């Protein structure tokens, strides 16, 4: 299985380099897999919730919607399979000016929208501009560094930045910067997003809310010979156990979110394949520094040292994952595998607590989401571990929406939380987590270390990857020492498919590229 994935990856690289060098034989370099690709069929994917809206400019454009939309709308750049960088997608090449302020981007020739209209520079300008406008209400904040987009000619755009900005290509790869027809092809935004049009491998089909959402093949897709599937149907199956049984019964092709607890039994089931794709997810405990005693670094460190991360990986992820050592997750560029984040050491934990403002321990609480079995297990293990060093921890369980409210208003002592990246650049996360001016009070912890804030700003504006690496290495070290979070573990994305599904690969940024997927009989 692992070899298959690597082969797909190599195949994709081969295909991409062929395209980039202008060779039109890209389709002949189809990914090598364990069987011959077959055209046709409907890929049935079961998910725990339905999409909300395809409106990529609205605030309610969330993960379940994005997962569908990325099959329809494509961006100038796309994330590489390893999630660490981007490659030209609807762009064919780009040049950067010497002052690092202007990116001149050539569009891939011959790409058409699924309505038959060719993609021009005007469409690109419109798409990026309408995203930028939603800075306060949608995903437009990602375009913060863009000053303006100019149409150079039909097949070239120039993007001018306000200041040098390292993450720009990563930003352009985001789903909200997908290229759509200028002026929504003459429709209103609402009409357009009811049945969106893009350049992607699939087109809008039909949506019965709460039941299923169907996409159909785009016959004019620019990658010749793709997509292989006729259609993709997303169904809503909230109960993990039902999804598992549907997969075992052959009623669906893919279970999008199997529980870790059933991962092993799925793996052992005949006709089922399981995948643990590398992710950018980090699970952590956030300390609210507005509340005593968490303003005391020794208290935070004591807790961070008291947690046995290996035990959590074993109990919660059933061994599928690794202990976390850094703020930046491994699927993200500049992750430092040697970052000295606190790891389990009971002696150090006791020593830190002894020199803190609460040497004899104290009582506190941990906020978790009800119905989340993983969080409940983590909380129970932590409760026992903190007791060892004299801290009494109450588990405060709220339903998911109530817990979100408590998070956003920093109404917690400690909060069990997680993050996943949207772009292949650490900046999105480091700014959210450490910049107190970002509007989120440093991931709602009120952490404020001027040295870290300065490093983070420097990292945004430094475009030399080697220098950036050094900056983020420092940032990872200091944030670890400050223990403003207790990092817990990095978990991969779990997926389960029938053995008839081939070419399925999910990048650490949850991009799917279903054009490469096919089903055998």
């Amino acid at each position, binding site marked *: 299985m692992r070899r298959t994935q690597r082969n797909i990856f190599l195949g994709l690289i081969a295909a991409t380099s062929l395209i980039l060098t202008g060779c039109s034989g890209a389709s002949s370099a189809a990914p090598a897999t364990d069987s011959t690709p077959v055209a046709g069929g409907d890929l049935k994917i079961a998910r725990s919730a339905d999409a909300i809206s395809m409106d990529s400019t609205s605030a309610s454009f969330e993960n379940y919607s994005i997962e569908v939309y990325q099959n329809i709308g494509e961006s100038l750049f796309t994330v590489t399979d390893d999630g660490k960088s981007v490659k030209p997608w609807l762009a064919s090449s780009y040049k950067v000016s010497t002052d690092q302020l202007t990116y001149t981007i050539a569009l891939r020739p011959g790409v058409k929208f699924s309505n038959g209209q060719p993609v021009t520079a005007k469409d690109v300008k419109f798409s990026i501009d309408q995203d930028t406008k939603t800075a306060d209400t949608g995903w437009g904040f990602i375009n913060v560094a863009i000053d303006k987009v100019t149409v150079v000619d039909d097949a070239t755009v120039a993007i001018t930045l306000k200041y040098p900005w390292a993450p720009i290509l990563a930003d352009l790869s985001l789903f909200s910067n997908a290229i759509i027809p200028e002026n929504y092809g003459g429709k209103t935004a609402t009409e357009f997003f009811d049945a969106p049009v893009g350049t992607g491998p699939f087109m809008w089909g039909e949506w019965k809310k*709460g039941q299923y959402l169907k996409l159909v093949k785009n016959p004019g897709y620019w990658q010749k010979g793709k997509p292989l599937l006729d259609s993709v149907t997303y*169904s809503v199956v*909230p109960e993990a156990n039902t999804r598992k049984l*549907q997969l075992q*019964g052959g009623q669906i092709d893919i279970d999008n979110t199997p529980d870790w607890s059933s991962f092993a039994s799925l793996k052992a089931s005949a006709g089922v394949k399981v995948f643990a794709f590398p992710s950018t997810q980090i699970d952590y405990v956030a300390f609210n520094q507005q509340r005593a005693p968490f303003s005391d670094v020794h208290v935070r460190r004591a807790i961070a040292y008291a947690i046995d991360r290996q035990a959590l990986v074993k109990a919660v992820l059933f061994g599928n994952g690794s202990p976390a050592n850094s703020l930046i997750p491994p699927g993200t560029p500049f992750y430092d595998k040697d970052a000295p984040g606190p790891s389990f050491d009971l002696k150090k934990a006791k020593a830190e607590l002894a020199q803190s403002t609460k040497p004899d321990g104290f009582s506190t609480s941990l906020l978790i989401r009800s119905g989340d079995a993983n969080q409940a297990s983590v909380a129970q293990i932590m409760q026992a571990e903190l007791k060892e060093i004299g801290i009494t921890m109450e588990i405060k369980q709220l339903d998911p*929406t109530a817990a979100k409210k408590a998070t*956003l208003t920093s109404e917690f002592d400690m909060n069990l939380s997680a993050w996943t990246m949207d772009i292949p650049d650490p900046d999105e996360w480091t700014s959210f987590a450490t910049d107190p001016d970002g509007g989120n009070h440093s991931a709602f912890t009120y952490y404020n270390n001027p040295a870290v804030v300065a490093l983070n700003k420097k990292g945004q504006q430094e475009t030399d990857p080697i220098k950036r690496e050094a900056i983020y290495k420092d940032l990872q070290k200091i944030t670890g020492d400050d223990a403003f979070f207790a990092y817990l573990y990095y978990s991969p994305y779990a997926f389960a498919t029938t053995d008839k599904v081939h070419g399925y690969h999910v990048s650490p940024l949850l991009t799917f590229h279903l054009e490469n997927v096919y089903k055998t009989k």
Partner: protein
Amino acid sequence: MFHRLSFIPGRLLRALPVILGVTIVVFLMVHLLPGDPAIAILGDKGTPQRIAALREQLGLNQPLWLQYATFLGRLLQGNFGTSLVNNRPVAELVFQAVPVTLTLLLFALILSLLISIPLAAIAATRPNGGRDLGVRAFTLLGQGMPQFWVGIMLILLVSVELRLFPVGGYGMTDAEHLYYLFLPALTLAISMAPTIIRSLRASTIASLGSDYVATARSKGSAGSALFRQHVLRNAAIPTISVIGVNLGYLVGGSIVIERVFAIPGLGSLMLTGIFARDFPTIQAVALVVALFVIIIGILTDVLYTLLDPRVNFSKEARA
């Protein structure tokens, strides 16, 4: 005979304050929950600015009484409002889910009758005999097993092992709907049948020992004709009200079953609505369910009246 049904308009009129009460209680309950749709949608990545913007867009900044008045005003015009989550008319979502749940309940009712009537008849013909004990053991088991567990066991056995029926979902065509709904309906039927069997068994035993059955026997009636025309018809009357009450409970049970079997009915709509704090959807579903229970109550009394000439709910009779 129809003058005995004159109680219906009055009953409907008296349902109005009940429905108004339901809307108020549900409205207050959902607004007492911490968190609102803006927070539910944006999640932990939402900045205060984005949440404020979305809240404004969704009209959540208005005072509670105004939100309720707007809701009630719209309702009086027959408008359920718009879902805060996916911006669709709630009526569209509800009317898409109502037939699903109704089919499921009706299917479950039919299956439970198909199970109950023969079993009750078998048990009643020789009380305390071997077959009666067998039936009583079944009713104990059926009542003792939790619905969701029965559902999962049926899925494991019938769907995964034998591959006879789908694990969950609703299908796309009418025939598929029935095929997909069979297992969930059976699950509900298994939990409902014991109550019907017990009531029907008791009344059948009473009926078999009655004078009118003895009379019928003496006139030469026997076998299934006797059972259908004289025993069952009389024994069914108390059972009708048992079924009526149980159907009301069954609506609640169907929420769990719809989730286990991934059926896009009212229960699923209600649950997703609650998790997303989609106030208009929650209120609409609660209202429809309340209406449903009220209508079932009235229908039960109508059936009762039609089956038993001695029953009269109308005013003149009570005066």
